[in-house]
């Protein structure tokens, strides 16, 4: 690890991975998607994970989001070993602690925007009236209050992604995992989404981990991490990167 400024070292570590490895075996061919990742992510930081397609970003995401189990190594979320959790505890973790945002939005097609947003609340045990109220305010936050009754097919990609963001915030999570949130969007819509994420990170203090190709991400994140062939190539603070790029150009 090259850089890690002393200013954030004393902050709380929210996600930590130790020697994280994941390999897929398909028809006897083993693909090593992750080949030993060690990283600590601090509370409230906005970290951007960059790397070419196939480098292992999504795999890394699934590991730290508790969506898949590693071949070896460990993932600690708030110092709790994810591998030790029961199915119910994992469900609780996914419901309350982590918000997921996907490249393809993954809204439930047969639910309205509001229902999509309130479903995780229902899973978390929030009553319908409170869920509705909170859902509306989240839709207001992403600027879609007027379209609460629309179904995903009746909305544009950007609008769908904003509903997905509102949904990911349903149970006030500590961590927001975004897997290429802007990849399917045009430039200006992507920009809006990025600004929304930045706002959330600043106003709500949510830890945002964002995989992306999008170079505009460099402007808004606190820290950057490059992955190549399942290994961390480099980690840098935004300030340092600016200077370097400036130097290169």
């Amino acid at each position, binding site marked *: 690890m090259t850089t890690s400024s002393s200013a954030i070292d004393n902050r709380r570590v929210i996600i930590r991975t130790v020697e994280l490895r994941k390999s897929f075996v398909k028809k006897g061919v083993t693909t090593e998607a992750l080949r030993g990742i060690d990283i600590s992510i601090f509370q409230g930081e906005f970290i951007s994970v960059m790397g070419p397609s196939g480098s292992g970003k999504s795999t890394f995401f699934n590991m730290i989001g508790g969506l898949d189990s590693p071949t070896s190594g460990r993932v600690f979320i708030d110092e709790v070993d994810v591998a030790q959790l029961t199915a119910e505890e994992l469900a609780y973790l996914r419901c309350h602690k982590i918000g997921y945002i996907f490249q393809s939005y993954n809204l*439930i097609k*047969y639910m309205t925007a509001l229902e999509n947003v309130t479903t995780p609340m229902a*899973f978390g045990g929030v009553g319908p009236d409170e869920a509705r109220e909170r859902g509306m305010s989240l839709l207001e936050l992403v600027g879609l209050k007027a379209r609460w009754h629309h179904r995903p097919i009746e909305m544009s990609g950007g609008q769908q992604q904003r509903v997905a963001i509102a949904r990911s915030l349903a149970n006030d999570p500590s961590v927001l995992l975004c897997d290429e949130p802007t990849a399917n969007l045009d430039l200006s819509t992507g920009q809006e989404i990025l600004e929304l994420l930045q706002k959330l990170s600043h106003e709500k203090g949510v830890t945002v981990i964002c995989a992306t190709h999008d170079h505009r991400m460099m402007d808004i994140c606190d820290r950057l991490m490059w992955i190549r062939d399942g290994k961390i190539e480099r980690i840098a603070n935004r300030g340092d990167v600016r200077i370097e790029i400036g130097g290169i150009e």
Partner: protein
Amino acid sequence: MKPITTAEQPWLSFKRTIDITIDGIRYRLFRASVTVAIIILAVAFLTNVLAEGLIKSKINAHVTERQTINQRVYDWSARLATPGDTESLLEELAMTKEGSRLFRECRQLTDMNDSELTQLCRQSQSIVVFLGFLNRLDYAKRRSLVHTAEGLAVLQWLRLPRNMASFQQALGTIHSVKCPLSQDELNRMLDDFPAMEIQLKRILDARAQAIQTLSRHLAGRPLLEALCETDSGFGSLIRQAGFMLDSEEAALISRQARAIQDELLIESLLEVRLIRQTRTHDGSTSSHTTQPVRQFLAQASSQLPSDVTTLDLWTMLESPRNARLLSERLLEMQDSSSASDDVHLEALPPHFLRAISMPPERFVELAESRREASSLEKAARLIGVREDVFFGLDERMAWLLVISLLVCGVGITNAMMMSVTERFKEIATLKCLGALDGFIMLMFVLESSAMGLVGGCLGALFGGLIGFIRMLFAFGPEFFSAMPIGNLFLGMGASVLIGTILAAVAAIIPSFKAARLAPMEAMRVE
């Protein structure tokens, strides 16, 4: 900022689960309707098989009952003609119980008391059971057990200790054969038999005596004719001779006997001849003979007079209008024969001419009862020999039922599997949002049961209706009143239940698989 603690995820409320499930079904209405169509077909088949089985077994019972009532007069003419043999009496006694007609009759004919008779019935039962057991064996086994003895001779044969020993030995070696009587029961039966035989003979003798008394009273009159008066004079003669006959039965028998007699009379009308004598001018006479009823029928059905059968006669007489026409025609002929010396009606034997003065309503009544009898016969033939295995279904139908259940199960499982597979992404997303495995399973099982319920109701309705209509056409509308409507609804209800449960069970495996999938594995399938 709150720290991450892990706690157990609560269950989603049942109402919300149902809401989500229904929304899901509505969104995929087309796929759901295909699944429901499969269920409808399967349940319809199931209900159809069940309904037709139920209807057939009910109609069978109805036909048997009606036929035994219609046969009462034949039973009595047999009873009053011959005392029967020992074996048939044994069978009668084995099936009777205290207080029955036969029981009271035996008590009256002989001077046996109730306990003697009850014992006789019980002993007859064990003999009938034993002989029935032997009769069901194949030839080789039977031969090794009782050699070539048949019927009651078997008991005679077994009374020899040597034969009994060989019987016991053979029974010991043939393992597939199980004798319904124990050794003690067998011995007791054999010991009792000589005394029984004497009692049986007493009954038979008394019967023969009674028959003789009766035939003296008949003095050569045909029995059928006498039976027509069972409700009056002849009935009391029967009772005096020692037979048991209640007034209801007497009325039934005389009615049936009269019907048979009248039928014969009416059928003889075909052979009635009209002879017309004409004198020629030279003083000699020539006669001209016609069969007026044949001619009448031949005209009505456009056939040759010689081709007309009794069947045509009865078919025609079913219509009151035709019956009246025929009756008028007959009376006309009678009038003309009494008005002129040259014309006269003739039938062989002469008393058959009585049929001419029968009212036309009687023609219609008899024609209709004949039609009923023939439709009962047709129904009995349609049903054939049946052996109920399950719910009034014979073995073949029970198999069909099992297969239709399998088809139903496989069809629904397949539909659910497809439905689950195409929803992997949705399942994964729901799991990312914190859904428990149990919720995912419940969602699919609910969805499947809902489809099972809808498909089951429609299928049961179709299947039941089709079965009902098919059976109605097969047996004819006369059997409408014999349809087991209540049982039919019960069967339909059972089919709905089976469809729903089957659908729910069929969804368990695929939804269990889906629920257990790690979210990202499911997500990857697109």
